[in-house]
């Protein structure tokens, strides 16, 4: 078990190092000087040079990479070029929009997908199943940004129940924050719920065909009793895997939804930073997202080992 964990951990560290190198290189290669961008078309060359010095841009590329990585290890993400404030603080502010949004969307998606998936599996081949599958087909096909615009049109412009976007901040009340995140969370959640419901259904149906379910039926349980008591638990393993993957996606994939609802989250921060060539912000936020995904994967690997004894023995 310990050897398995250590091996997984070593692969985590290696992934992080490779990711940091790739991110840094790619972003350095993209043309565009942040100092020239800030000062615009009337700036004099000596002004741009002065600003480059102030920003620390005239150090060599390897030196900047090292100072970036060693800073991050110590929790210091550096200073944003354009905002001129510490990146760590900016990320901390934005995480409190993106993380709650991802969690909110995940809860919604689970709440919709579980009943829908179980219902469809229990009605296999009947009209109820067809209706749910048809709806999920639609959910998978509709792009979430388009669905988001539709929500705005109906609930913000016509019904006026919600704002069209923006985020008041948690310090102005929890209810206001939750309300501001509701439409974006629904827009993010529905396509995910559709996927999750399909996985739930097919996983349950697989289990219903297994020997242990047949045994349960043979000893006198009804189909429904067998589903709830025996199949559901075992069907959860692939579903939980999908939920784990979806969480990383929701955290990183909110970029477009944050644009549509002009939410001050991580996605909007990356978007603004890329166009302003605020390299240090882009590098740090992308690195943080990579870190989150890698850690989630690491946790999933560990969970597998806990669930599946064969992995422990082999490792």
């Amino acid at each position, binding site marked *: 078990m310990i050897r398995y964990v250590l091996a997984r951990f070593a692969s985590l560290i290696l992934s992080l190092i490779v990711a940091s190198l790739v991110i840094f290189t790619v972003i350095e290669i993209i043309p565009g000087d942040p100092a020239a961008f800030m000062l615009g078309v*009337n700036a004099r060359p000596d002004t741009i040079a002065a600003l480059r010095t102030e920003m620390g841009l005239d150090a060599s590329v390897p030196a900047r990479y090292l100072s970036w990585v060693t800073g991050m290890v110590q929790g210091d993400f550096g200073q944003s070029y*354009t905002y001129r404030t510490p990146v760590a603080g900016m990320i901390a502010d934005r995480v409190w929009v993106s993380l709650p949004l991802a969690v909110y969307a995940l809860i919604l998606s689970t709440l919709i997908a579980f009943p829908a998936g179980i219902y469809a599996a229990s009605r296999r081949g009947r009209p109820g199943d067809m209706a749910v599958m048809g709806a999920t087909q639609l959910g998978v096909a509709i792009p979430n940004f388009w669905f988001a615009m539709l929500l705005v049109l109906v609930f913000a412009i016509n019904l006026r129940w919600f704002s069209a*976007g*923006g985020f008041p901040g948690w310090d102005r009340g929890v209810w206001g924050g939750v309300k501001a995140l509701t439409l974006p969370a629904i827009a993010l959640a529905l396509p995910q719920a559709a996927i999750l419901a399909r996985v739930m259904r097919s996983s349950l149906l697989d289990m219903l065909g297994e020997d242990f379910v047949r045994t349960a039926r043979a000893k006198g349980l009804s189909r429904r009793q067998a589903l709830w008591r025996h199949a559901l638990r075992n069907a959860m393993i692939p579903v939980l895997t999908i939920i784990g993957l979806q969480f990383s996606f929701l955290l990183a994939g909110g970029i477009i939804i944050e644009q549509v609802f002009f939410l001050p989250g991580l996605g909007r921060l990356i978007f603004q930073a890329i166009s302003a060539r605020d390299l240090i912000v882009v590098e740090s936020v992308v690195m943080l997202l990579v870190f989150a995904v890698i850690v989630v994967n690491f946790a999933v690997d560990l969970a597998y080992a806990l669930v599946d004894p064969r992995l422990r023995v082999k490792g």
Partner: protein
Amino acid sequence: MTMSRTLMTASAIALLAGMAAAQDSVTVGIQLEPPNLDPTGGAAQAIDSVLYSNVFEGLTRFMADGSVVPGLAESWTISDDGLVYTFSLHAGVTFHDGTTMDAEDVKFSLDRARAEDSTNAQKGLFAGISDVTVVDPLTVQVTLDAPNGMFLFNMAWGDAVIVAPESIADIASNPIGTGAFSFADWVQGDRIELTRNDAYWGEAPALASATFRFISDPTAAFAAVMAEDVDVFVGFPAPENLPQFEADPRFQVLVGNTEGETILAMNNKMEPFDNVLVRQAVSLAIDRQAIIDGAMFGLGTPIGTHFAPHNPDYVDLTGNSPYDPDRARALLAEAGYPDGFTTTLKLPPPSYARRGGEIIASQLRAIGIEAEISNLEWAQWLEEAFGAKDFGMTIVSHTEPMDIGIYANPDYYFQYDNPAFQQLMTDLNLTTDPAMRSEMLKQAQTIISEDYVNGYLFELAVPTVAKAGLQGLWLNQPTAAVDLTGVSWAG
């Protein structure tokens, strides 16, 4: 019973009063968020949009019609040789942190902007200053190397506002100025809040508070205005939706001018654009109205030179380059390119460039010029096209006010090198007589128009969508600004 009815009436009145009181704040939508709040350290227009005149003030200031009037300087005298400006400052002006604004602050601000390690994006505005002297707390003397007819105009820019040494260290995140509004809060990515400065030296503004929100996506901007999340959107990014707002009695639509001359810039040192006949051919191949209609939904005024049409010195030179593809083809043949040529057309992100570029490319194809379009991000454009001058043609809107002087700089990205024009600009700077200046400005416009330096397309318009009751908004944008000092709600 009577008692409770009186109470009810009283509370109803209080409620109404409360509703009326709520009408002294405004929420302003703009497209871009300022990267920081230091107007003296960056070119981003969004900084001035939020802060100009609201939070920061200079010695002089722009009015909505583009005229320059006294700001923090009450009055001034100019020495006979035009070299020494003596400014008398308003008495009793304080910064938002309570410190006094006096001649020392003016000296500090101007010296800081022109210092060697200055990061002022418009350092050129201060280039001619040789000395700033404090005479007494309310009098400051600025000495120039040479007479400069533009000096008072230059001091009105957002980059020339007066800042204090006490608060300069945190200016990027906590701007402290002398304006009618003080900075209250910035939720990065979402909004900036301003509140009325009760100690303001000038006329108190009608608004008690203002919120700026940053909505970059055109569809989201449309939704925010329709849902009345914002009271006014300055620089509304979806012109295709303007007719819908015009038809809706809840809203008013204002279409104003900017200082943005939108040009098809040509690389004057690169073959074949080093040939004036080729540049003329390109200019004649362009149908301006088709571009304004197709790319800008009809917003914009055709121009024939690099000058704002609303300026009293503007000369309409569109007649120098009427849409005439046949003559354009003949000119190309005369220049030695009977079969046309292939070149690059590098487009920055704004829709005037991206949409306009597609139309221009097809118009040029009609006379045999194959323009290969590449879409660039701003940072990329600055590096490749503007910095390295690696482009054949590009489309840019030059939004700085009175910037015809860029044609006197042979190193500027379109690389126009005409000694006669350069001499004219040098003379213009030395001239302070208004009539002579006007004459010279007209001459300058004519020279670049007849040299076909660039293809002159249109003056960029700025659409503003506001709720019907909001009044006192700037119609035009003589400088990037959302001046709220005169804004109020009707009724």
